[in-house]
């Protein structure tokens, strides 16, 4: 039982990082990205290559992952500076689809669909460490950082840009710089999650970094409550453990297991949105909060 829960907790912490960082740009800056899995993937490949080629040091892997994902997030920042709303969703969709093709085709770096296998387990000073404490530490760090930034002046800058970018700019705010910073921060965080994921699973391939994954992360943010600190974490834990809990339901014919679980999962998603449109931790009284 413990091993099962530890594994689930590790994955939940990693998803928590993804959801929190995505929430930073969705909930605060109003940048609706469905390409978060791309940066998750970039970090995972970066971290995995560090562990495979150099040393399985988790800190180095996370650092490299953050740099790669943060650096390449300028691909996402570029459309974010030019268009808003639905247009940006579509731009990030395009980026996600193209990136998934690249992940599948750049075999020397990513292993293609076959993926990278045998990623060594993380070692600190020569001892193998489990990923859970690392993931929890990273999650805590990122939550702390997002909380600081969200409540501080940078969060205010982002919100003002979300609500009225032209007014923010005419008050002297460099809107492009702030948006780019937010995107780089969020994507670097996703990169860290990617490195931890690679170290935890020992195997990664493109199938973990597809549009479906991006939508799942988005769903975590929305279901938990966009623009709240703890909402995305709640959403991540819920969406990750829901299928695991459903799988304990007995007496489903084995050949229908998948379908029944997916139907319950999808129904829960829809009903939650109908009855708690602002998310579980979102403030219902706030009216239209984003977009």
């Amino acid at each position: 039982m413990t091993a099962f829960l530890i594994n689930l907790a590790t994955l939940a912490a990693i998803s928590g990082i993804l959801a929190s960082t995505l929430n930073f740009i969705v909930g605060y800056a109003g940048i609706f990205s469905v390409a978060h899995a791309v940066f998750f993937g970039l970090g995972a490949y970066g971290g995995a290559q560090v562990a495979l080629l150099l040393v399985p040091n988790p800190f180095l892997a996370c650092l490299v992952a953050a740099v790669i994902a943060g650096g390449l997030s300028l691909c996402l920042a570029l459309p974010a500076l030019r268009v808003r709303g639905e247009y940006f969703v579509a731009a990030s969709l395009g980026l996600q689809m193209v990136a998934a093709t690249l992940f599948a085709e750049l075999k020397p770096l990513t292993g293609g669909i076959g993926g990278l296998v045998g990623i060594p387990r993380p070692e600190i000073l020569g001892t193998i460490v489990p990923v859970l404490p690392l993931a929890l530490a990273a999650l805590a760090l990122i939550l702390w950082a997002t909380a600081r930034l969200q409540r501080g002046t940078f969060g205010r800058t982002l919100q003002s840009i979300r609500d009225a970018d032209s007014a923010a700019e005419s008050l002297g705010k460099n809107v492009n710089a702030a948006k780019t910073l937010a995107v780089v921060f969020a994507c670097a965080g996703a990169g860290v999650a990617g490195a931890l994921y690679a170290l935890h699973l020992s195997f990664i391939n493109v199938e973990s970094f597809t549009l479906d994954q991006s939508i799942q992360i988005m769903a975590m943010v929305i279901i938990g409550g966009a623009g709240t600190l703890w909402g995305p974490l709640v959403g991540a834990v819920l969406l990750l453990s829901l299928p695991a809990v459903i799988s304990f339901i007995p007496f489903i014919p084995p050949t229908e297991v998948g379908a029944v679980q997916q139907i319950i999962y999808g129904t829960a998603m829809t009903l939650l949105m109908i009855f708690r449109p602002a998310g579980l931790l979102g403030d219902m009284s706030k009216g239209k909060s984003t977009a």
Partner: protein
Amino acid sequence: MLFLQLLLNGLQTGAIYALTAAGFALIFGATKIFHVAHGTAFTIAGYVFLFAWGAGWPSWLGVLASIAAAMVFGIVMERLVYRPIQRHEGSFFTVFVAAFGVSIVVQNIIGMIAGRGFATVDTPLSFSAEILPEIFVAPMLWISLATAGVLFVALTLFLTRHPAGVALRALAQNPDLIRTYGLSSNGLSVLAFAIGSALAAPAAIVTAMTTGLNEAIGHHVMLISIAATIVGGIGSLRGAALAGMMLGIAESLALTVVDTQWAEAVSFLVLFGFIIFRPAGIFGVTQTR
């Protein structure tokens, strides 16, 4: 010769994309709802036709049943999912997640009822003949192009002549205008969902006859519809249809220059490029503040 063949193939794919994209664009334009379950309407329509065909119904009845099913799905989505959400909070992604949940549910129910994997309507209409040396064309190509053409003429007439159609266009441009027509925007949004979803049915039937269906097929169709709507310019039906056609052709003609595995990425590269360099789309007008 290869070029001509690929162009013809692209036209057939393009006709399917154009019809679904027009439906998506109509719904999005009139209601501002990003209807990501549009692909689900497509899947439902395809399977209903498949069942009607399998049960030996005459094909016209199957087509009607398929259109009706798509319309019912669209209306049910509007009334039971989107409207309650928008009453509280019209957040863009709340709608997105809810619709995504529905598409998961429907996909799996179809898998349980119809069986998983590939299903197709077996008809000689999809079988190609060599009309010119090296050029193979199936009757379905002409049928799908004609269907798309006729539907567009009909839709254009409806949108320009019929009061409800004119009101729909007005709704797309300015929701406040509607009051002057004395039509409720609620009723109009149901109408938009009904017509938009119905447009997916012919495309789904063509797909069922040519490439065949599986329960997950709606996903890809929906993505293309989104891409086409943006490339065509939000609010422009003509743009969405043309862009859908263009993406279909681009996907096919791309094979003359790139390897086959990149064909699909081409559509989305086009999309990405459009947003960076011409965000207003083909027919959109650049907004100035």
